[in-house]
């Protein structure tokens, strides 16, 4: 059972729980009672170096992402019927949610979905696109170089915090789009193939103001084996977040 006093603290502000607790405590409470869980990262914090440094990964996952999960779970405690919905449906139906939940689901639910996807599409295989996904990239962008250039330009243009995404339709058609803050194309009922976080917390420790350099380096951290898997899932209707 969750104690009311804890809920009050968690609901006190965006990121507040993460901000009040030292890292070892965060690790213990990263998956509190509630419908949403912080999934294991799947690789070590230093696995993506030098493109993303270990400290950035640790804070990003253990503090920023964990805070979104905790804030959302705390808010959903009073709304069991919403809490029972899959996250992608919650996000697609924000307009129908109780007024008191809309902003929390948008910010923290969006943050949870975006980061869950983000950790999933990165890795260390070093593979290049091949097969279906390579063909789709060639068809829809004219090749990987053009996709990268367009994607990075969208990320550089985005003013303030937000994300750049490649969306995928059930037919396998790809498109680049960006969203502010923790908004996601899932809120428009679309599916995300992959995306990159351009909040400053994603790159400031290593790249400071040089967002363009981070965007360029990030392609070394993407795992095309995982992206291929998501592409196949999207076409079979199995891709959720």
């Amino acid at each position, binding site marked *: 059972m969750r104690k009311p006093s804890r809920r009050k603290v968690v609901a006190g502000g*965006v990121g*507040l729980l993460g901000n009040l607790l030292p890292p070892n405590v965060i690790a213990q409470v990263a998956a509190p009672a509630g419908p949403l869980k912080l999934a294991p990262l799947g690789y070590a914090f230093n696995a993506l170096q030098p493109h993303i440094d270990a400290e950035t990964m640790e804070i990003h996952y253990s503090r920023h992402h964990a805070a979104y999960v905790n804030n959302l779970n705390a808010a959903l405690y009073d709304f069991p019927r919403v809490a029972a919905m899959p996250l992608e449906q919650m996000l697609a139906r924000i307009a129908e949610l109780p007024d008191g939940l809309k902003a929390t689901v948008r910010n923290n639910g969006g943050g949870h979905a975006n980061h869950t996807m983000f950790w999933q599409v990165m890795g260390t295989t070093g593979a290049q696109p091949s097969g279906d996904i390579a063909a789709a990239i060639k068809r829809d962008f004219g090749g990987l170089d053009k996709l990268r250039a367009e994607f990075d330009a969208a990320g550089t243009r985005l*003013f*303030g*915090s937000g994300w750049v995404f490649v969306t995928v339709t059930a037919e396998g058609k790809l498109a680049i789009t960006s969203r502010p803050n*923790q908004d996601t194309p899932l809120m428009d009922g679309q599916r995300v193939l992959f995306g990159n976080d351009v909040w400053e917390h994603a790159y*400031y420790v290593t790249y*400071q*103001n040089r967002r363009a350099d981070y965007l360029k380096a990030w392609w070394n951290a993407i795992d095309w084996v995982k992206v291929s898997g998501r592409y196949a899932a999207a076409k079979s209707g199995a891709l959720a977040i």
Partner: protein
Amino acid sequence: MAFTLPPLPYAYDALAPYMSKETLEFHHDKHHNAYVVAGNTLAGDGTKYAGKSIEDICKEAFAGKDQPVVNQIGQHYNHIHFWNWMKPNGGGKKLPGKLESLVTAYGGYDKLRTDFVQAGVTQFGSGWCWLVIDKDGKLATAKTPNGENPLMHGQKPILGCDVWEHSYYIDYRNLRPKYLEAFFDNLVNWEHVEKMMG
């Protein structure tokens, strides 16, 4: 007249340990400078904004939904004052007389500090938190996203704190509340706040 980057009104290491030299170097020399450069392209000589005051450009761009100018000139305005809203050995409860009566009417210094920090903590994503004089002449707290500022919303900004992560990530990482508390307790230049009251 072209927009220019004003020099920092103190040494880069003058606000340490609350705001480091490294933060001020990136924040002033890189981030603020980028807004000046982009602002000159978007709203400098040869544009419809040429010759207008920066305050009027902020209001006109926001009313006209000219988002690129809202972003770049808004941020130029915000940063010009941000540097002056801080000073070494700043902050604290000793307020200039003109401000003191407004703060008392607001509910006191402690309430003001709590509400200001809360406005900054709850500004989701990049943006600013503010003390403003509202349309009724009363003191209020506010928050705005990205490059927006209270001028665009019909209020007079008298104190602002930058809560873009670039303003605190080097020194505080994700701990935005700690940064906001340090700003209010140790950095605020209340004399510039009083000056902004006009």
